[in-house]
């Protein structure tokens, strides 16, 4: 299906999220959409799928003007969207997820649908069991499930909003193969991303957005520097690999064993030095989260001991770890890290240590303004946290970290951030390493892990590798280990 945007405008209060957007996507192509955080990419896609109504402008499908007033309308017209965080129902079964929202009689034909799922999975080489629960799937599998569902509903346009942020390299290859196959069958694919190399590899044409405007359309052959310049209006330098690792061990893990109801990790031994950065690689759900939560005191190991600066912390609780200078930035920013409904100022008030009963509003606002400036947060002290774009929420989370920390634990610190923000955030974190702060982080982006870690641990199905030196390993080697080869 051919899609054409004509003079699309969308405002959120004073923010002009889409400013007079005009462009056409021909049928059967893979259209890339690039742009910095907050450029308006998701907004345009949500206008196309009926989540938002444009303030003005028109959309043409195969040269016919259409009004898309709800997501359901969009699916009826053949447009389906895979959201970055798949819009599915984790506690329900795969088959129920498939059926939820379908039209028809009171009792759906489960047998038939089960067959359809199996047939489609085979066609695309996915392994999805209709009877498993969605919450037991990895993010990559949940994306596959959504793609299958949308294809099953018969969409002719498939929109993917940053689909590669939560999945492993293998899953990514599979996804790209699927998309190429679909495009060759005549489907129109819209691929929204920050990652230049992915867009270059996959897309047959690219539209670049900046600050609500379409700054240009590009055809192959692509030039990476040109993309960067179009996205940011300037060139962006990747920082040199720097290390502040000292030879002083600060944290010692001795024969640590961890378990939850589906995973057991046995006998982990590790020393983390002052100023050292350790990257945790592995498929989601391979134990990285247990490991981080153990280091924060949120999870008690079933065996072994934890020494922090010579003190035995085994069995201590989170507040004790916090006092000792441990901070934890969880992946689910809005659920575990920030408090929706509260303003930036209120967040700073909560995170600072206080000794008096009443809050000094004036000084709190001053502090907030300082941090907003220092961390380039696009927002005001009175902005509510959920109104910030994803990249700015992440900046806020980092701005909340207190000074003088000994250990920072982060899950996917740059997930969903554009390159410029990611580089900037890491430069801020590395500055802390100079003061002997150690960092342990997880990421599904192996380039990020190799670039910023001193040593790397790979997790696979309950196994934890020996520390691997980041200078001597490669993306390929890590990829093999993550996939379970070479143990």
């Amino acid at each position, binding site marked *: 299906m051919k899609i054409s945007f004509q003079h699309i405008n969308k405002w959120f209060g004073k923010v002009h999220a889409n400013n007079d957007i005009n462009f056409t996507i021909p049928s059967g192509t893979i259209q890339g959409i690039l742009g910095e955080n907050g450029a308006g990419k998701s907004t345009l896609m949500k206008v196309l799928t009926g*989540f*938002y109504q444009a303030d003005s402008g028109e959309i043409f499908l195969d040269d016919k003007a259409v009004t898309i007033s*709800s*997501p*359901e309308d969009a*699916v009826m017209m053949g447009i389906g*969207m895979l*959201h970055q965080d798949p*819009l*599915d*129902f*984790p*506690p*329900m079964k795969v088959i*129920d997820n498939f*059926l*939820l*929202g*379908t039209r*028809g*009689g*009171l*009792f*759906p034909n489960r047998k038939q649908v089960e067959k359809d799922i199996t047939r489609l999975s085979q066609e695309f080489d996915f392994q999805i069991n209709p009877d498993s629960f969605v919450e037991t799937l990895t993010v990559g599998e949940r994306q596959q499930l959504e793609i299958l569902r949308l294809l099953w509903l018969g969409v002719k346009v498939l929109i993917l909003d940053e689909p590669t942020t939560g999945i492993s390299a293998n899953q990514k290859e599979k996804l790209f193969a699927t998309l190429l196959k679909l495009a060759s069958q005549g489907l129109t694919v819209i691929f929204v991303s920050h990652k230049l190399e992915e867009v270059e590899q996959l897309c047959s044409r690219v539209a670049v957005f900046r600050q609500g405007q379409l700054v240009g359309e590009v055809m192959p052959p692509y030039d990476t520097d040109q993309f960067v310049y179009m996205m940011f209006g300037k060139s962006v330098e990747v920082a040199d690999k720097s290390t502040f690792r000292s030879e002083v061990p600060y944290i010692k893990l001795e024969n640590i064993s961890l378990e939850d*109801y589906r995973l057991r990790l046995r006998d982990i031994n590790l020393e983390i030095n002052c100023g050292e950065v350790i990257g945790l690689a592995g498929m989601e759900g391979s134990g990285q989260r247990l490991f981080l939560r153990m280091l924060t005191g*949120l*999870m*008690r*190991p*079933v065996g072994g001991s934890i020494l922090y600066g010579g003190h035995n912390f085994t*069995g201590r*609780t989170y507040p004790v770890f916090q006092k000792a200078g441990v901070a934890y930035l969880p992946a689910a920013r809005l659920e575990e890290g920030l408090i929706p409904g509260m303003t930036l100022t209120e967040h700073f008030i909560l995170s600072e240590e206080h000794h008096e009963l009443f809050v000094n509003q004036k000084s709190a606002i001053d502090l907030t303004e300082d941090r907003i400036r220092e961390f380039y947060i696009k927002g005001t002290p009175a902005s509510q946290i959920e109104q910030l774009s994803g990249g700015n929420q992440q900046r806020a989370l980092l701005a909340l970290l207190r000074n003088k920390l000994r250990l920072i634990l982060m899950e996917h610190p740059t997930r969903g951030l554009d390159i410029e923000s990611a580089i900037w955030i890491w430069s801020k974190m590395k500055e802390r390493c100079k003061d002997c702060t150690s960092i342990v982080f997880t990421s599904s982006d192996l380039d990020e892990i190799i670039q910023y870690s001193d040593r790397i641990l790979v997790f696979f199905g309950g196994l934890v590798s020996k520390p691997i030196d980041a200078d001597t390993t490669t993306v390929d080697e890590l990829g093999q280990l993550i996939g379970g080869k070479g143990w």
Partner: protein
Amino acid sequence: MDVATLTTLAGIVEYAVPVLFASIGENFTEKAGLINLSVNGTIILSAMSGFVVAMTVDSIFLGFLVGAVVGAIVAAIVAFSSITLKQSQVAIGFVLALLCRDLAYFLGAPYTNKPGLFLSKVPIPVLADIPFIGPVFFNHSLVVYASYLFIIIAYVFMFKTRSGLMLQGIGERPSAAFARGANVKALRYFYTILGGLLIGLAGPMYSLAVKIGWAGQLSGLDGIGWIALAITIFGGWNPLRVAFGAYLFGGLQQLGITLQSTTNIPIQILQAAPFPLMIFTLLLVNVGRAEWVDRELAAMPEKPRIVLSKILRALRTSPPASLGVPFENE
């Protein structure tokens, strides 16, 4: 088996019925993502109005109808103030719980201890003659038979039908349900009112069938609504487990009645005991969610740790993820 035991068992089946309707009604509402906290007041008010209407117009059917309507109206107030006016569901529900109860005592005062109508027992031919099963399950009034069907229908609807899947969807993740074509607000209205209607039916079930009559404050209905709320949680938002919880509570109540005639434990204790016991069970079911329990478990030796954590996981239930969270399209 002796007659006394059979009577006790039959009593459990009967006593569980109103609680069962109220809890499964609340189950519908909460599955959709709303909390209707007014249950306790609703049951008392609908018990009174059902009894009074049935007596005045001489129609049991109208008595039940009025009870259901009262429940639906109270639920509609909860829905309107939380979905449309965006006020706190918990606050409004709590206020209504108190208000409806006191309103019932006030309006019902002139009818206290008046003789009225009641549903008589209708043994089911053939089935009632089966030994044991017959007297326990098939020698009751119509509401009891209705409850058997109701449990099955509620379960099948919630988990096996298209509409039931959507119901789970709007309580679990309304934004995703919206993306799949649900009118989330309208559906939440619908299921809150439906739930209220079922809760409202519990009232006349007491006053016209199970605990016949209206005795004002002495009717012994105060507190049951709170238990119904607890049973919904105990039941993990699954009508089958909720029904089991209702029978458990019915059992505790019956036990009290039996002990009353056979021992000399003070009657006040026997009447009050089912309530803390029920709350204790609730705690037991959900204790596995607490962080300190995880920590204690981790400190145990391997064998008991594994067994215990399996048991706790099996007991554990989790609420609809968006329970109590308002929904906006944009």
